[in-house]
């Protein structure tokens, strides 16, 4: 038995409605408990800001596409190199660091749970292998269903239960957590070098529209009782005027779940663009935020862009090709048979560039204009908008109008005419930041009942203590202190152990992987469905028996069983 007592912590724990109360946190064997014995090790938090461990509900850190980003970018690896020290391994990389680099840097910022945003089922084993080498965070993977042949055929046949059955079989086989749709239908069209223009444009051959795919999979998701909602990367990412497509997509979504949203729309900054082309490109954050305010069934994340060098990577192959044609930088694409695809190019977001400046503003506007912080979570779609190490700066920007104005003065001068940002006075408070970086994320992922995102008894003892007293720091003016504090915790505690202290990781931990196994009736077990088996054998290049990811690939296996209504 190991016990730890964190004393005098200034706790903000939104899922329990706790806002800046000074209290003690008792930990036994990796869990939060009511109290511990006198023998417990004691950490004195001295009134420092103490939050549940950070949760990133949309990041790209592990798997085929991420690793290809590393593979093709030796120039990125020239930054962030550290040697092996004690139990810690060497790291390399800035925008696409090595697995250890990701894990250690997230840990230093107080993050303890990460959701990999896009896992191609056929290559899932790779994602899980990398999870093993991401030791200081618990992990889970959104699984891609945007171009799944079996699902598109079932949708064409109007058989939503079969859609659910295929999702159930696949999630179980690949040890996936949630359902991800990236440019639904577009990734299949891209395997012919084409795309879909918006949600009413049919997918070649399959003759289903993105709207049908979205609606049908949202229903299937709820039939399966999955902890997380459908996680949607809308069609038309990155194109001027795409906000209408985004609103159209969000408008498809009914309110089907009492506990959480019915749709998680990701990196909405990239989908909130007005204008008919690059010349009149402008922000449409306001209509999007107003729309989301009226729809409790929708949660989004920012996908904030920050200036500097990064690597874009997404399952949205056609979008990456368009970026390549724009930048003429190096371009990788990887289509995955019967399922999905991905693309990668490096980019530099520049302050002097008008489009980039507008993008930067839009992300912040979404967070500031959306009334409830539970509905707009903080991300950069790491590393697409910026590497996650920029989160502290984003927090500071959201908390300080003064900082925003100072930054605004350095960007392209025409930005002011294209975006509402300069007129927005709102400054988020500590509680709202806690919602947007852990509580809201845990709730949106549906993992608060699994002990994530809060510090109530029974929760996993994942705690971040930041070297800052909120009664002493005014974030509106002392924004540098906010950045410094969120950049390195005083203590990061993971599963009851101190894993990082003042910017240094201390131990080489071992992650847990969350995955979902929906229990379906015999009739809907695709493993026994003759048509499913026959098509699998004919058109995949991997045998069906060799497709599932074995449990050997899960370090600490956290299987979530759900009762499906099929």
């Amino acid at each position, binding site marked *: 038995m190991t016990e730890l007592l964190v004393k005098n912590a200034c706790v903000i724990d939104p899922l329990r409605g706790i806002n800046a109360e000074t209290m003690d946190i008792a930990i036994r064997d990796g869990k939060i408990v009511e109290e511990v014995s006198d023998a417990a090790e004691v950490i004195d938090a001295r009134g420092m800001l103490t939050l549940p461990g950070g949760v990133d509900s949309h990041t790209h850190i592990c798997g085929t596409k991420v690793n290809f980003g590393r593979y*093709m*970018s*030796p*120039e990125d690896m*020239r930054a962030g190199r550290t040697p092996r020290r004690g139990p810690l391994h060497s790291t390399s990389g800035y925008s696409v660091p090595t697995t250890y680099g990701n894990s250690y840097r997230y840990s230093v910022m107080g993050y303890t749970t990460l959701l990999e945003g896009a896992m191609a089922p056929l290559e899932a084993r790779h994602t899980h292998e990398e999870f093993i080498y991401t030791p200081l965070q618990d992990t889970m993977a959104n699984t891609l269903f945007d171009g799944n042949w079996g699902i598109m055929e079932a949708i064409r046949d109007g058989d939503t239960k079969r859609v659910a059955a295929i999702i159930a079989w696949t999630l179980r086989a690949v040890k996936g957590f949630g359902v991800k749709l990236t440019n639904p239908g577009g990734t299949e069209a891209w395997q012919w070098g084409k795309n879909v223009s918006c949600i009413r444009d049919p997918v070649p051959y399959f003759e289903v529209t993105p709207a049908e795919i979205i609606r049908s999979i949202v229903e299937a998701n709820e039939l399966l009782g999955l902890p997380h909602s459908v996680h949607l990367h809308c069609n038309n990412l990155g194109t001027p005027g795409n906000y209408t497509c985004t609103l159209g997509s969000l408008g498809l979504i009914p309110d089907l779940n009492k506990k959480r949203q019915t749709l998680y729309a990701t990196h909405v900054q990239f989908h909130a663009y007005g204008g008919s082309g690059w010349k009149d490109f402008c922000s449409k954050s306001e209509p999007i935020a107003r729309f989301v305010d009226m729809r409790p069934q929708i949660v989004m994340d920012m996908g904030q862009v920050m200036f500097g060098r990064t690597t874009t990577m997404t399952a949205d192959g056609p979008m990456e090709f368009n970026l390549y044609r724009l930048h003429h*930088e190096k371009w990788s694409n990887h289509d995955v048979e019967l399922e999905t695809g991905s693309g990668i190019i490096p980019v530099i977001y520049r302050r002097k560039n008008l489009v980039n400046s507008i993008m930067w503003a839009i992300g912040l506007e979404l967070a500031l204009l959306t009334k409830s912080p539970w509905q707009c979570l903080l991300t950069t779609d790491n590393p697409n908008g910026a590497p996650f190490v920029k989160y502290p700066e984003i927090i500071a920007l959201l908390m300080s109008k003064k900082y925003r104005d100072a930054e605004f003065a350095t960007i392209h001068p025409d930005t002011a005419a294209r975006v509402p940002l300069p007129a927005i006075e709102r400054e988020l408070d500590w509680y709202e930041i806690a919602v947007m970086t852990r509580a809201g994320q845990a709730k949106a992922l549906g993992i608060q009942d699994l002990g994530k995102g809060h510090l109530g008894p029974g929760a996993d003892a994942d705690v971040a203590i930041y070297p800052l007293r909120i009664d002493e720091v005014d974030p509106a003016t002392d924004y540098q202190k906010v950045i410094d504090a969120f950049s390195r915790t005083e203590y990061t505690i993971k599963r009851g152990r101190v894993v990082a202290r003042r910017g240094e990781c201390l131990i080489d931990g071992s992650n847990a992987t969350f995955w979902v196994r929906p229990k379906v009736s015999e009739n809907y077990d695709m493993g026994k469905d003759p048509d499913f088996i026959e098509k699998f054998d004919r058109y995949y290049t991997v045998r069906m028996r060799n497709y599932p990811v074995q449990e050997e690939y899960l370090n600490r296996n956290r299987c979530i069983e759900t009762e499906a209504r099929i």
Partner: protein
Amino acid sequence: MKVTLAMKPAAKSFIPIEAESIVPKNFLAGTDLSVWRGNRELRLDEVFSVSVEGDAGRAEDVEVVLSGETFRLKRVGEYMDGGTITILGDIGMHCGNFMSGGTIEIHGNADGWLGREMAGGAIVCRGDAADYCASGYRGGRKGMIGGTVEVFGRAGDFLAESIAGGTVTVHGDAGDMAGAEMHGGTLVVHGDCRRPGANMKGGSCYVYGTAQGMLPTFRKIGTVQHEGHTLIRFTGDIANRGKGNLFVKDYEYLD
């Protein structure tokens, strides 16, 4: 100030020694520097007989002279921004990486990646320079961006790869793929070379000898007079964007 570093004979003579600490400005604070032989850190005086004459207040007034079996010394003059390094014999890889000022003179031959990603200053190599002289780094878009490199002997393959600025002159022949991916700056080869300017999209490449294996995607425009040579002028590689200029005295296709 003159710092003389004479290499001591060593048992493990072939394990490379990385000596990025050998930069003129570092000697302003003394000679308490270290170098690495493989994974072992060694004091400068374990590897060299060190002697210092005079003193200096700024890097520009420091001259470092290297002698002995210096061919396994890597990264000498890396990030150098002023002063002088003179190498009496041969020098190992990556001499003058990222250099932005000062002068390096090599009396013998230089191994690969001489003046990689150089930004300024001057390198003179009296002997031959091996592959990737004045080039970029793996995966990078830009090689040399400024300064001058002059090689009196021959140069190896991938000379001035991805050069974006500055001037590279080779008095002898150069190897295969000279000036590949060139997008700025000037490359002059007095002798022959193979497949110059492959995929170039900017800058100027001059070959006073014969371009062997001349690529089929350069369009001939005419002849020009240049420094007393009559040269045939081509546009840059049309497989790419056809920008930039390639001038050769003579050429042979692989037809």
